[in-house]
């Protein structure tokens, strides 16, 4: 197991390096704004821009710039300075991370709490009225874009622009929240919105996975042994049915922490990493983009590793060499 983990970590480092190189190449190959010209302002002379280009190191060949970036990262854990705000990238990311962690943690608890029980109930009573209702509802929620669902939720339920039942804190309320309780309150509506589509997906996955495992021979054997149905489901059916859910969860949390919650963050004005990524791309702020991509890749790699390790404990058939 230890060797397996060590190997995965080494692969992770290689992946981070490759991701970093790809981002660098993409930035310079595709037409993006000129950071030196943006930094200089609209009335600056070409000489001023050249001077800024030099001071930012942008006059160097791409591979030299990439070498400097990797050197600073490895030796000093330095991700550089934002071209646009002059603030160091690590500070920018660390500042945005808590909001995203709040959002993703709450939403994932919510979607697991809803999605798994609904999926189990639907799997145990296939083709029942309950199964039909849950599956049609989940299909509806999956089809609803998060951006649209977020706006609908705001205009119905937020206490600033809501018109039906304005009971939830509104847009940008996270900025005013100082205590954990206030922060949780400000996140209620975003949690519900972000969790709704995921809960629906998890319910469908759980249903199909549990239905598959409940038709396995070992389930029939367990029933033949006279075990109560609850025990059969919980100890034999669920244990193997949950593994794809764990895989999905690891990937989802990794990608959401990496900035994939951008739409929810945008609608509710949550100052998270997703919004930082979007604004950095728009402003061609390479150091911030680079930092966020590395940071996102790191999360995805870590959560995938956690998932793989969790497999070994969840499913006795899985053993890593």
């Amino acid at each position, binding site marked *: 197991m230890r060797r397996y983990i060590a190997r995965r970590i080494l692969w992770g480092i290689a992946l981070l390096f490759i991701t970093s190189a790809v981002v660098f190449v993409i930035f310079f190959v595709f037409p993006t704004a000129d950071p030196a010209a943006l930094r200089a302002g609209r009335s600056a002379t070409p000489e001023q821009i050249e001077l800024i280009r030099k*001071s930012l190191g942008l006059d160097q060949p791409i591979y030299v710039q990439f070498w400097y970036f990797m050197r600073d990262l490895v030796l000093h854990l330095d991700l550089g300075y934002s071209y646009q705000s002059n603030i160091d990238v690590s500070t920018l990311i660390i500042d945005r991370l808590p909001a995203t962690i709040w959002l993703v943690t709450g939403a994932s608890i919510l979607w697991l709490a809803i999605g798994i029980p609904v999926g189990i109930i639907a799997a145990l009573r296939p083709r029942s009225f309950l199964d039909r209702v849950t599956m049609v509802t989940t299909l*509806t929620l999956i089809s609803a874009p998060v951006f649209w669902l977020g706006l609908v939720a*705001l205009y119905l339920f937020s206490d600033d622009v809501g018109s039906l039942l304005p009971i939830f804190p509104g847009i940008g309320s996270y900025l005013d929240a100082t205590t954990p309780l206030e922060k949780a309150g400000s996140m209620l509506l975003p949690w519900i919105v972000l969790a709704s589509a995921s809960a629906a997906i998890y319910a469908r996955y759980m249903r199909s996975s549990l239905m598959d495992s409940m038709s396995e021979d070992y389930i029939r054997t367990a029933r033949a042994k006279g075990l109560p149905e609850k025990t059969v489901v919980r100890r034999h059916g669920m244990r193997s049915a949950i593994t794809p859910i764990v895989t999905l969860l690891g990937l989802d949390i990794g990608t959401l922490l990496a900035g994939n919650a951008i739409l929810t963050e945008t609608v509710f004005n949550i100052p998270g990493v997703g919004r930082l990524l979007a604004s950095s791309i728009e402003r061609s702020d390479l150091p911030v983009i680079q930092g966020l991509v590395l940071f996102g890749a790191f999360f995805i790699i870590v959560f995938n590793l956690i998932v793989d390790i969790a497999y070994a404990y969840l499913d006795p058939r899985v053993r890593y060499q």
Partner: protein
Amino acid sequence: MQTQWRAAALLSCLVCLVLGLAACGSSSDSGSKETGTGQNDFPPVNTAPDNSKKGGTLTVLAAGDVDYLDPGAGYYQFTYMVDFAVERTLVGWPPDEIDTPQPDLADGEPVVSDGGKTLTFKIKTDVKYSPPVNRAIKSADFKYAIERGLLPGVATGYLESYFGDLIGFGDAQAAVRKDRSSVPDISGITTPDDATLVLKFTKPVAATALQALSLPIGSPVPEEYAKQFDSQSPSTYGQNLVATGPYMIENNSAGKLTGYTPGKQIKLIRNPNWDASTDYRPAYVDKIDIQEGFSDTSSASRKILTGSDQVNGDFPPDPPVLKEATTQTPDQLMLAPQGGSRYISLNTTIPPFDDINVRKAVIAGSDRDALRLTRGGAIVGPIASHYIPPAVPGFEEAGGAVGPGYDFLANPKGDMALAAKYMKKAGYKSGKYEGNQTLLMVGDDSGVGRKTAEVALNSFEKLGFKVNFRPVTHDTMYTRFCNVPKSKTAICPNVGWIKDFNDGQTILDPTFNGQAIQPVNNSNWPELNDPKINSAIDKARLISDPNERAKAWGEIDRQISAQAPAIPWVWDYFPVIMSTDVVGVVNAFNGNIDLSYTSLKNP
């Protein structure tokens, strides 16, 4: 079983219907119909009422962020809104002043002498910096503030435009090229004593420099404190900013800003060292909370209009919300002229736009009213008929609202018959373009800018042009295409220019002077290079008398319009919206809310 299925389907449909109706109800009209009748119905308030109350917290909602808090680097109207509350400048703009900047940190009117080549200020020495600097300002702080602008880590974009004629400016530039981290000396700036600042120029441009000192570059920077930050590249002084204005950004005991998180929040509190007796600003509210990141401006606008203590900062409300505001909450809306114009540039060096008759045809055939509708109609500003915007000296002389009287600019809805006439004059017998040239048009890839570009595209295609429309981000459009002559961009549909201060030079010199064309960061997008116009600009720059200046720049505007280098389509207003309990005051110079004059009804 079938009944159960139908019931489930019905339930889902009901859910969809409820959600759908809710979404529709959120916006009464997503179209871009013309709204309101214009500024007269929603005039900006430029003075604070006598009964304005002190206290409370004003919340400013913003979609984006300031560009830089460092007064040497900031160059954006939203930044100025913050700067003017935090930093006092040598001369400044009370909200009702648009003609001449008034002494602020200058003790009395500055003196222009030596035939307009010397500018002398007496400084108020009883004004103190905010903590942790705490000392009184002195003239050397202003010299340092200007000189540090040459460092690439600070990079004041407009420094050379307005201070390039200072004696010793070239030497200072050369010194920075050798050593990029040491602030150079500009020998033309001297400080005979702590209360006197003298600027000497090689040309009679002191009057223009005086106006430029009303921009953030005219605020003092304490060298002994800022030097440690300026030695880094980029300078981190902006993260350790000290204030001279009524407000400061929250900081810790070392001066590090704790109240600023980029793209998230700026918290302004009262500057404990500010002395009201030295300032014209009343500074009513106790705190100003600038909350950023409201990129869904439609929701944010509604939040302001239905909420309390809020105003908009950098974003105009979406057209549907603006339309609602004109009828439902007119008292919460003000239209502030921005002192700028938007136009579609036609590259005069690229065929067929190298033919003036083709350019005239394009302007004649363009539906400028439709272009303006993409931003919300008449309420966003009058249709432009030339380049100097209203309220900037030279506007009336250039033809005022009616325009210079050229037939191709006469019909805002477009005149296809006239366009055809000009095309025939250019040699196209059918009255439409008959060549094979495909023209590169680079415009915005999203938002209202994209809509504007699409309306423009339609207009060009109607005249028979083959256009390759390349949508990119706004910054990419400027820095890789429209600002780079080498890119051979024929049409830039999303460009515009806002005054730096109230002078025709700031509108016309960078944008239509042939000598200003540069290989990168070029703002003369049409690449107009007319020797007569260039020469007139050179002469007008050196005129000191305000009336003569206005006349000269107005005449230059007429000459430029006659060359048909672009399609001017709107002189922008900025719609300021506020909650019912906000007594908003707009700064006429900046065209945005004045944080030092705005107050709350119930603080």
